[in-house]
């Protein structure tokens, strides 16, 4: 029906506009995106593999309203294999995978880590997961690793068992998975907008976006959370949340509760999560550094104040560090911290009642 086509068209353009905004492109890019996506003779095939995962990235992927997941899955890409979403099971599912690999030229998305010490710790259809990824990577146009596990190993990467998992990049470096153009889109779980943005960017330009030295798209991961945090002013004022019940502290800096924002590069403060409704620090919890290759073990203990990671020292961050005020206040902080007031000049030199 005409009316439906209009609605459909509107949804589609909304999807294109949402994607343009994710990628930092102006509205002028919307018709170009629409043309590129509509103009394709066939929908670009996508294979989505899940290894040692929790399906959290899949659940996160379907948690985007604008751009919407339904438009992406049904209208924009041809999702040939995705264990959590596809209709087929068993040999019917496996045949869809084999046929698509045979065809080649698809975008390969990998969720979850790859066990390599004993590769039998993840098997699908009777095959070791590492072999499936190897086969699929060999004939893919590009590979997108999503979430902490598939990018850098994440939590399974820190499990000291024969099941210890590694990320796709490491598996490529070790010669276990065929080398290919790899884009890392970390965080635990992946942010749906960053994933959809990366997919569409690739479809538009036929190449990965500009990436940093750990393979992350610069557009999403080039800013320190701490430098862009909505609570930064409270850090500068020495106002730290010490008790979740104190109403006055509800928007104060989370550093003493263990926030890893000073060590983590990601656009979370601006992009936020769940359609922009909230985010980790927004709910007075702490950033746990899930965008970084050090996550998880390198970020633990999660709820303890951390002074230094990778040579980044909190003392050196922010304008306060140049003043002598922080040192001057160091001797008084314990009493003040009881009420969360640490005076101007950032965190105390040591300790805390966190």
């Amino acid at each position, binding site marked *: 029906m005409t009316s439906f086509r209009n609605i459909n068209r509107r949804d589609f353009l909304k999807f294109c506009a949402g994607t343009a905004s994710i990628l930092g492109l102006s509205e002028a890019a919307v018709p170009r995106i629409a043309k590129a996506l509509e103009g394709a003779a066939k929908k670009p095939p996508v294979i989505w593999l899940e290894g040692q995962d929790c399906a959290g990235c899949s659940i996160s992927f379907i948690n985007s309203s604008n751009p919407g997941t339904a438009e992406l899955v049904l209208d924009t890409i041809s999702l040939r294999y995705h*264990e959590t979403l596809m209709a087929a099971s068993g040999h019917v599912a496996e045949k869809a995978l084999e046929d698509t690999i045979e065809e080649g030229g698809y975008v390969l998305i990998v969720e979850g880590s790859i066990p390599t010490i004993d590769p039998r710790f993840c098997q699908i259809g009777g095959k070791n*997961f590492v072999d499936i990824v190897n086969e699929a990577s060999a004939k893919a146009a590009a590979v997108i690793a999503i979430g902490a596990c598939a990018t850098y190993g994440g939590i399974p990467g820190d499990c000291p068992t024969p099941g210890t998992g590694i990320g796709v990049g490491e598996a490529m470096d070790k010669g276990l998975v065929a080398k290919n153009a790899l884009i890392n889109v970390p965080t635990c779980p992946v942010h749906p907008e960053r994933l959809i943005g990366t997919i569409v960017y690739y479809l538009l330009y036929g190449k990965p976006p500009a990436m940093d030295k750990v393979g992350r798209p610069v557009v999403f991961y080039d800013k320190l959370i701490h430098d862009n945090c909505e609570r930064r002013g409270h850090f500068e004022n020495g106002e730290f949340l010490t008790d979740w019940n104190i109403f006055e502290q509800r928007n104060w800096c989370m550093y003493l509760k263990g926030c890893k924002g000073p060590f983590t590069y990601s656009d979370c403060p601006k992009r936020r999560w769940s359609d922009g409704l909230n985010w980790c620090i927004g709910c007075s919890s702490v950033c746990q550094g899930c965008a970084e290759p050090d996550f998880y073990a390198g970020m633990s203990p999660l709820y303890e104040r951390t002074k230094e990671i990778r040579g980044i020292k909190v003392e050196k961050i922010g304008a306060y560090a140049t003043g002598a005020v922080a040192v001057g206040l160091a001797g008084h902080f314990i009493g003040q911290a009881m009420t969360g007031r640490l005076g101007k000049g950032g965190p105390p030199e040591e300790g805390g009642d966190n």
Partner: protein
Amino acid sequence: MGQRITVDPVTRIEGHLKIEVEIENGVVKDAWSSGTMARGFEALLTGKDPRDASYVTSRFCGVCFSVHTMASVACLDDAFGAQVPDGGRILRNLLMGSEYLYDHIIHFYHLTALDYLDIMAVASYNGNDPALKAVKDKIVSLVKRGDTSPLTPRYEPDAFSVADPEIVTMAVSHYLEALKVQVTAKNMGAVIGGGRVPHYQGIVVGGVTQIPSPEQIGRFKSMLAEVTSFIKNVYMKDVLLLAGPGGPLFPLAQLGVGGGHLNYLSYGAFPEGDGSTFFKPGVVRNLDLNNIEEFDPAKVTESVKYAWYKEKEPVHPYDGEQKFDRDKAGAYSFVKAPRYDGMAFEVGPLARMVVEKNPTLLSLIKAGAKPGAVARHAARMIETVALADQMQVWLGQLIEAQGKPGFKIHDSEHWDVPDTAEGAGFYEAPRGALGHWIKIKNKKIANYQAVVPSTWNASPRDEKGVRGQYEESLIGAPVPDPENPINIVRVIRSFDPCLACAVHVIDPKTNQIRKFRIG
């Protein structure tokens, strides 16, 4: 010997599951359920700050993430001696409730509905409803473009599949609508204090982290109203239309396909202010509703005889080490076999509604439905409706409590890690009974254990050779065409499997559990 067939992977579930069955005369005669992935979280947690556990264990599962955090903070609360204030309790209920609403909706529409619908019947829709015509256009345009992934390929529809174009088209339109509603349901949790989904950030030992603002409460309220409207006007009606007496799936319900052991276990969940729980705990054996027993955690045991772990004497493994043995002869799964009083039990929505003798479920049974795959879908819908209503009540309690002086969301006196302690926490995941156990020594985790719903349901055989509930529930399922074993996936998916979290677990030394804590 019958014919042996394998479904691997079972898709539209969480995790990696293989099902093997032996078929004789067109019905399943024997079955084996195998979890085929393991990570080893316990070893990771040992030596860590105990407060990390609620964050890390959320990653057991990205579908039912918050319930692991809930069971984890419950066991940490117990170990730390924390008393969660009323504000924290109510907010935890609202956070957990939001997960249930999204999870049950997504299960019905996106994970399981395709098993019952001949989706291509949409092309034959000839009605005049503009919304349904739009759905037809959409599907037809996909077909014309020659690409209907991921809706096809599929197992072929069978005699039990719904092929009425009107019903199928309506169901597909609801599939698409539900894709949007589940986002709203999930995001309710992000607004009211989770920070984001999946994997909430705002639940910690002692309570929660966010005092919701009036704007956030208002937003939550309107989102809850929107989701509740879908649940009552669409989800409930769809399930009743399909699975109720006279509905196209009622014959499957009458056959009791997917029934299994008929033993049901619930730990109870959603603590109320008076110490009771909204979902009731209890034990029912062989569907004997005249004898609802109290749950006794000391009766939980486990077997690793058929699991890829080093053989152990039948002692409580809490004292021992957890060691994988992927080469063990006879073993076929990473999932262990928990048993209650030596028997295999089902956990999940059907177990919860049986244990509390839910009148709607009982009326379905009275009308001729037997416990099984279809009854499981009905039970899931029934509790979703009840929970959506109760969340309105909790929201009212929150608003009232927040208006009074002294409103608290966290027990800040018990944030510091104790030197030595142990604790247990129990909850009901959307998929069923969940327990977490912790031992703390020198302020670090000395041992961390979880027994999760899909371990109960997906377990392999035990020492006595008794099948797990998935395996038992497949016995007798009709599989006339071995190339198209659609009833197998119907039965398995009706449990809403969640395998990632099922494969890393061992049981508690239950005689050391002194307290029993829910949420």
